[in-house]
């Protein structure tokens, strides 16, 4: 054992490894911060550069880009209301309102700390519990994932505020929009109306940008100019008290991310929303979530970063890539003649340990790169809106185009901008739309796959302990929401 660790250290401890890891984090952070440049895109673009590198060096470069990209996605979500990645979409809910109040630096700091702590916990979980979590992940079939997503959707009640009915309607619209494209089981068209581009459905990024960033820009032109209220926290970074008050939320969000990350196919967005939902339910400031609450940002960021290390669990332990990024990393392993899975732990244990050492170091690099970049990036929030908003719109246009290299996505973004503006005017909350649009495909796919497996019997949704557990949680949350609403009503009347 000691010999293996020693040889792993010699494989890892080179300047090349440290350099590419740092470079990867910088590239990932930068790319993640550009709307439209997704983390999988950045990892895929980096892959060819790893061909001539040593296996550990090449894989560490990809892991650096991956981790930087997940954090980078939150930067634009906070500063300009345009999430760089779908996983960062939950960060928008509280991050942007805080940035608007002039607290951009404070909220970016908390997002960074939450990301780094979650990343560290996720990495430690990968190292210590890979075997156990891989076993748990294998117990998740379609019915279990369906009940998990049903439970995640209960957050809609939380983010709808006092507009619950409109929030539910908004979620219905999100679920319906997510059904556009080819049917999963029969391969027939749904709501395509002869438009070839719609066959693969709507892409996340143009819809997210259109729904959040564009309406804000349009609304700016009709808003009366008001002088910004004096905010003692404006321009200041996060304090130890801020971090301390969010620590419990961050740790809880990290573990939610770890568990969901270990399940192939779930991804960072559901983890972020579930972590956010739990934080909202348990926080004494739960009512302020969605209007600019620092704990909300910490919850979202810890949830989506907690996934980062854990997605490597099914990859390394079982050889199963959980998402697009780990599929690309699997490709990198195979290019170097390595096949992830149980055999890798027997034949190349020192290489695995060397990767673990690099992964641990990546959390530190993320902190350094993030801390350095925040000082510069947070200044964006101070640019006059009459210059900033038009520039943001240009960035959004390029971002929407870059996802699939098609003008069609730009038009989708504009159309969603008009929808988002109408929702803003009619006071229909956009957050439930967003949550449902992201979770919708997972919900429907697993619903129908389960029914296919059970030959149409709904009993499959109650067939395991995990299903019962999530049904129980869902019912509990719905009951608590009703009780809380009745209490509020009683107070209002009495």
């Amino acid at each position, binding site marked *: 054992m000691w010999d293996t660790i020693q040889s792993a250290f010699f494989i890892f401890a080179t300047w090349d490894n440290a350099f590419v890891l740092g470079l990867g984090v910088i590239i990932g952070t930068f790319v993640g911060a550009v709307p439209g*440049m997704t983390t999988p895109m950045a990892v895929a*673009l980096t892959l060819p550069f790893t061909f001539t590198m040593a296996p550990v060096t090449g894989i560490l470069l990809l892991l650096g880009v991956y981790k930087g990209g997940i954090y980078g996605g939150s930067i634009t979500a906070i500063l300009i209301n345009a999430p760089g990645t779908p996983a960062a979409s939950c960060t928008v809910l509280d991050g942007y309102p805080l940035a608007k109040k002039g607290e951009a630096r404070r909220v970016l700091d908390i997002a960074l700390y939450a990301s780094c702590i979650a990343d560290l916990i996720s990495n430690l979980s990968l190292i210590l519990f890979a075997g156990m979590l891989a076993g748990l992940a294998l117990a998740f079939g379609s019915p279990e994932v369906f009940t998990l997503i049903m439970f995640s959707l209960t957050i809609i009640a939380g983010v709808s505020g006092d507009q619950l*009915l*409109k929030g*539910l*309607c908004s979620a*219905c*619209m999100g*679920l*319906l929009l997510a*059904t556009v494209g080819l*049917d999963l*089981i*029969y391969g*027939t*068209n*749904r*709501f*395509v*109306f002869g438009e070839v581009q719609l066959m693969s459905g709507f892409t996340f990024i143009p819809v997210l940008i259109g729904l959040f960033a564009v309406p804000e820009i*349009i*609304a*700016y*032109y*009709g*808003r*009366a100019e*008001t002088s910004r209220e004096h905010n003692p926290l404006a321009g200041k970074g996060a304090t130890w008290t801020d971090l301390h008050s969010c620590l419990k939320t961050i740790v809880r969000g990290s573990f939610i991310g770890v568990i969901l990350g270990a399940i192939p196919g779930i991804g960072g967005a559901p983890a972020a929303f579930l972590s956010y939902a739990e934080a909202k339910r348990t926080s004494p400031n739960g009512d302020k979530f969605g209007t600019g609450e620092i704990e909300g940002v910490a919850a979202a960021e810890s949830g989506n970063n907690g996934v980062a290390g854990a997605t490597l669990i099914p990859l390394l332990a079982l050889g199963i890539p959980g998402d697009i990024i780990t599929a690309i990393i699997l490709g990198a392993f195979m290019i170097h003649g390595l096949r992830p899975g149980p055999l890798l732990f027997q034949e190349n244990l020192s290489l695995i340990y060397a990767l673990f050492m690099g992964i641990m170091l990546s959390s530190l690099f993320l902190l350094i790169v993030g801390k350095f970049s925040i000082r510069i990036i947070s200044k964006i929030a101070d640019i006059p*809106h*009459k*210059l900033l*908003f*038009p*520039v943001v*719109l*240009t*960035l959004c*246009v*390029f971002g929407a*185009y*870059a996802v699939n*290299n098609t*003008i069609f996505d*730009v*038009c989708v973004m*504009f159309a969603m*901008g*008009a929808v988002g503006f*109408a929702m803003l*005017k*009619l*006071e*229909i909350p956009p957050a439930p739309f967003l949550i449902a649009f992201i979770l919708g495909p997972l919900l*429907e796919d697993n*619903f*129908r796959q389960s*029914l*296919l497996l059970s*030959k*149409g019997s709904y009993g499959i949704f109650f067939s395991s302990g995990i299903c019962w557990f999530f049904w129980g949680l869902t019912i509990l949350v719905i009951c608590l929401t009703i009780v809380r609403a009745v209490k509020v009503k009683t107070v209002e009347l009495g």
Partner: protein
Amino acid sequence: MTQNKNFWAGLALGLIGLAIIFIAIPFGVDEPKKIKFAALSPAYYPQIVAIAMTFLGGVITLRAVMRPIKSNTETERPDAVVRISIVFVILAIYALSITYLGLVLAPVIALFAFMFHAGERRIWVMAFIAIAVPFGLFLFFQKIAGIPIPTGVLAPLLKGV
């Protein structure tokens, strides 16, 4: 006025739900001839969601009619409707012109128009930003990220870049 907004929101959502049930699903969902059971039909899930949306839209409308709510204070400019209409016109022209003008020239013009509409009057500042930002993004995506950007009418000029 929140009550008015709730009424119109409920009505709009309800009508969208009805349109999906009676128009979009029958004409937009291709159902296979043989389906093992109803729940596997491609129309089953959208139908459930659309019915729920119609019902909720109806409830919102009814509540808005039956229960008056205090009005909200607005912080809009007096000429907000005109200004926002201009934004929509610029956006429409922007979207329609991208295919012809390309993703460099169209943003240059749109950026200039949006800054001017926002109240910026320093011509050199507007000209610099309107040119530097789209060209900078073009160079980043085209050269670094390797994403081909459509250059439209500027194609002959930007061919060598």
